[in-house]
């Protein structure tokens, strides 16, 4: 059965590998450039003794040359990527069998269909986990210089490093498998799966994530006025406070000379990654469990 699942997903596996190679090439080129620039500008020394305060020009220049490639590029291109990867594998898993009529073949062999489905789901999910982890490693490696300036708790980095990237892929996969079983068509299932996926992503990222743990606050006095308030890049986090890498949530109180900001400290990064990945993996299991039940019940 494992061989059967592998054979059915072979071309998808090759596509996934090609995608990973493309990302690795992009990451290698950009990552090496960033590393060269990082050492040429002595950013490491600067960060080490003053957290970047004493060399704002170098920090600004680095951000200018790579910020848009690393961060903006991420938002526009990669935001949907885990969803598309998961849905592209999940949507045809059942729907293709129903489209081709091969469910009659698959389910009339000497393997009960629930076992057939569980093995297929396990093989595909394992493959996606490997792909997700590999992509995460590539992204984490090439982003490393930027992460030293901003930390990896910021949205741009957080969503593509750690555990959550893979968990997003798995959730899209689960949704698409269920959509395929319900809609019986691969392409509509793929599209239908992306809608709840994006919705859940947005709700978790903007509503739940800031409150996975009770936020901390810090108070800032700025005699010359505090300016625009909370943001989440290095320009808005005075490095002197030692808050690089913290996730800023909001400015609570801005009286002009004092500013109170709530934030999640950088040290909670892995706890947050685990909580969020746990949420998505749990949702994935629920959706896949519902699918297995649905397919089993089709016999009745």
């Amino acid at each position, binding site marked *: *059965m494992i*061989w*059967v699942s592998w*054979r*059915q997903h072979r*071309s998808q596996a090759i596509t996934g590998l090609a995608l990973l190679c493309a990302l690795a090439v992009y990451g290698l080129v950009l990552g090496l450039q960033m590393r060269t620039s990082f050492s040429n500008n002595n950013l490491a020394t600067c960060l080490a003794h003053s957290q970047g305060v004493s060399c704002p020009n170098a920090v600004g220049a680095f951000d200018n040359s790579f910020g848009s490639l690393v961060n903006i590029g991420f938002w526009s291109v990669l935001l949907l990527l885990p969803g598309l990867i998961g849905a592209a594998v999940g949507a045809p898993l059942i729907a293709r069998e129903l489209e*081709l*009529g*091969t*469910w*009659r*073949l698959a*389910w*009339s*062999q*000497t*393997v*009960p*269909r*629930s076992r*057939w489905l569980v093995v297929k789901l396990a093989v595909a999910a394992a493959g996606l986990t490997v792909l997700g982890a590999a992509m995460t490693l590539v992204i984490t490696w090439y982003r490393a210089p930027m992460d030293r300036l901003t930390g990896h708790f910021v949205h741009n980095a957080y969503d593509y490093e750690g555990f959550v990237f893979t968990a997003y892929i798995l959730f899209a996969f689960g949704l698409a498998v269920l959509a395929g079983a319900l809609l019986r068509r691969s392409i509509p299932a793929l599209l239908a799966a992306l809608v709840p996926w994006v919705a859940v992503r947005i709700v978790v990222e903007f509503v739940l994530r800031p409150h996975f743990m009770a936020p901390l606050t810090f108070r800032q006095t700025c005699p010359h006025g505090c300016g625009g308030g909370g943001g989440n890049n290095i320009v808005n986090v005075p490095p002197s406070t030692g808050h690089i890498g913290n996730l800023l949530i909001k400015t609570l109180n801005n009286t002009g000379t004092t500013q109170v900001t709530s934030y999640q400290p950088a040290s909670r990064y892995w706890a947050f990654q685990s909580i969020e990945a746990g949420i998505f993996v749990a949702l994935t299991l629920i959706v896949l469990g519902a699918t297995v039940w649905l397919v*089993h019940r089709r*016999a*009745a």
Partner: protein
Amino acid sequence: MTHDDTGGSVPALRTTGLGKRYGRLWGLRDCSLSIPPGAIVGLVGSNGAGKTTLLEMIIGLRTPTDGQIEVLGHTAHANTAESLARVGYVAQDHPLYPDFSVADMFHLGQAMNPNWDMALARSRVEALDIVLERKIKTLSGGQRAQVSLAMALAKRAPLLVLDEPVASLDPVARLEFMREVMAQVAGGDLTVIIASHVVSELERFCDWLVVLTHGHVQLVGPVDGLLEEHQMLTVPRATPDADLPGIIIHRDDSDRHSSVLLRTSPATPAAQAHQGWHTETVSVEELVMAYLLRPIKAANSSNSARGAQPSGPITKVMSR
């Protein structure tokens, strides 16, 4: 010979009071059959008659609402490995994975069936000059049908179910396909159920017949016995139904004469005594058509379980 005469051995297939309900509608109801081992059964019915429902329950793709199925004496439980192993199945349009090679399909068969006979599968397609490395999508319809059949046979199940196996094939491919089936039956105890619209095909190959209409079994039995029990009678048009010596399955009135397909019992042998009556034997095609054309009311009032015996409730209904 009656329909449940299986020569004392365990029937290859027995269904008792089998029924399947979809919501409030019955797709199949009160279906009782007993098929002896080695029979080649033609299953005929118009679209929506319940053929697919019956086949899917036999294969184990669907759970019956009522009744039960036994394959070689073992009660079938839908969707369990034990039951799935007993039935080989060639689905309509021969579904296979288009990007698999023939060898891949056989590898799948081996991975998914404990009794898989790889030598049989390979020899079947090699005999037909189908190259194992060919992708399924490059095969002709006839070749795909042969690969499907080879897979169903290599499963080594005692019961083989073919759903419209030749409907999509050209005449040569049809002949080749049926020749393969016959060759396999000749070699062992294989029992075959062929659902088909092509009645002429069934006439050539089947020795048993099941006719299904409106979710009920109308006719079941060995072809020879059924042909003996039925006759085509030409009578003057004025002859009332009640005078006819048997159950009227179909009556076709023309200007002066009526042709009537009658089911007679051995007790009422001859109609020759009557002046102007003319008796002929029936063909399988005429027999099947007569049952398919039977009005819903007459068809459903007959108890499907006793469909083959001209007795009991049928007689009462028909002889007004």
